[in-house]
């Protein structure tokens, strides 16, 4: 009886092993072949996009968000409440304001050109970068490559900046963030006070 049972177990084990091998083979064969042959990819400078709050913007008519690669010749467009920064690595960076459309071209010779079709853009060129910001209306700004520099341009030109109204310190009701945090903290502590065991809830002063 024991011998029969042992033989049965062996047979079942062999069957299970065979099945597992079969399944492995079939999965292996079913795996899709990557028919894409190795294609040499040309080395070139590539930039990186960062969008505010990771909101998607439009690059070459297609949605793109933080982490996207920006190639030379890209048309970048932001909508309302959207802004973006393109990190050009050794060349510098480009900040794009809301409601802006630019065409960005650059090369590995240190040339960066930003054509502002609408809105505002700021090009921060690093040293040895020949930066240019231009509009399709003909106005343009260039930097001194030896010094780098910051180039700002709006299309149409931005009105003169106005002094911020007083009391706009941010935070709750314009109180400033530190004051707001203090208020929240005080509120939180007040709410938590009954939770702590105290000898005299009235405090130490009369």
């Amino acid at each position: 009886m024991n011998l029969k049972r042992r033989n049965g177990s062996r047979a079942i084990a062999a069957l299970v092993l065979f099945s597992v091998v079969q399944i492995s083979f079939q999965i292996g064969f079913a795996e899709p072949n990557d028919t894409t042959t190795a294609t040499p990819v040309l080395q070139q400078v590539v930039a990186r996009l960062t969008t505010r709050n990771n909101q998607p913007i439009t690059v070459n008519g297609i949605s793109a968000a933080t982490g996207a690669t920006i190639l030379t010749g890209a048309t970048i467009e932001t909508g309302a409440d959207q802004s973006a920064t393109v990190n050009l690595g050794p060349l510098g960076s480009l900040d794009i304001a809301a409601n802006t459309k630019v065409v960005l071209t650059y090369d590995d010779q240190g040339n960066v050109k930003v054509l502002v079709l609408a809105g505002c853009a700021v090009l921060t060129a690093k040293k040895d970068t020949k930066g240019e910001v231009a509009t399709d209306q003909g106005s343009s700004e260039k930097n001194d490559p030896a010094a780098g520099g910051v180039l700002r341009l709006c299309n149409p030109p931005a009105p003169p900046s106005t002094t911020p109204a007083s009391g706009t310190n941010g935070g709750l009701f314009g109180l400033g963030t530190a004051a707001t945090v203090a208020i929240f903290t005080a509120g939180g502590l007040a709410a938590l006070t009954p939770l702590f065991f105290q000898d005299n809830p009235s405090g130490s002063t009369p």
Partner: protein
Amino acid sequence: MRLAVAILAIAVCLFLMQASARVGFSRLFARYALIANSLEAADEAVRLTPSDPEAQRARATVLSRLQQPAEAVKALEAATRLRYRDDLLWIDLGNAREEVGDTQGALAAFDQAVRWAPHYAHTHWQRGNLLLRMGRGADAFAELRSAVAANRGYLPNLIDLAWGISREDVNVAEQLIGVRNDADRLALIRFLARRGKGKETVAQMRLLSAPLSKPQKDEVVYLLFSAKDFKDAFEVWSSSPARTAALFNGGFEESQILNEPGLGGWVRSREQNKTSMAIDVAEKFGGTKSLQVSFDGEWNPGTPLLSQTVLIEPSKTYRVSFSVKTKDLVTGGPPLLTVSDATNGQLLGKSESFPSTNSWLTLSFEFTTLATSEAAVIRLQRNNCDPAPCPIFGVIWLDEINLS
């Protein structure tokens, strides 16, 4: 005994209340920190719940906005330690590390993102983009293709990247994309047509295993036409190489008028949809029909009423002839036909203004195309008149418009 249990229960309740309050306030601070870019609020959120990854994440976001990427990396590292299976946290960490120039660290973070969400596209997409920037093109495109396999919504982005990286070499781009079927190829065809790459579009269309459906073909024609690649748009539209000028439906024998810009007929301007137009079988100069246009006052001068884009050859002189009849036409800016270059809009020629005549009159004019001309637009429009407004009343009939 009962008293002890009650006290214990009350203590547990109070502890839970305090813990809930801490979490609640922490979240409140974190939310406020993100709205107000307040590092103090973010710090307070972390102080209240140091083991809450969301508080760390909010702090990292604020630090990043305040241009303190190194500190943001530390906060995100703390967050990933607290919730190591969160692929989005790993992606945030990868991006933050790349921001400070730590590409190897970024890659390690994206590896973790892919590890914890291997079937999602965004993790592969982020990793692929980083590899591309690291100069590992082959690995990058393999990863980007994985993203597309998980979510076809990334296909246009992949095509755009491949096109740019290949420096507009369609064969290299095709290999980088890994076109496997007609659906992939159709996406590539749309991309090429939108860019006005007519030759490449037609070549890709020939590689399809099944011909495009009528709506798909119309879409490709429209994209090429919008990109001002008129000859190739015509080739796709007519399925034959087009090199001769042709004006369609010049006698208005077909009643179809197009509503969208395109080839093969007259297009009615959207802005002038209040003007009444009809195919008239009673009045005609030749054939069996003509076009009747009735004016009740409105027609903005300078805006065409009707237009047709026709293929032409460069540096060549053409003659446009047509027959016109008017009835009770009263206006300071009478209608006329104009021809302009389809690519740059330059006026090439125009007819004399339509005269007031109760019988058919045949008019003609010549124009010479530019050296770069591919197509021209024939328009029915009107002269400007001073002062505005410039109403127009009456009826005109047009027939037998010919280009030779």
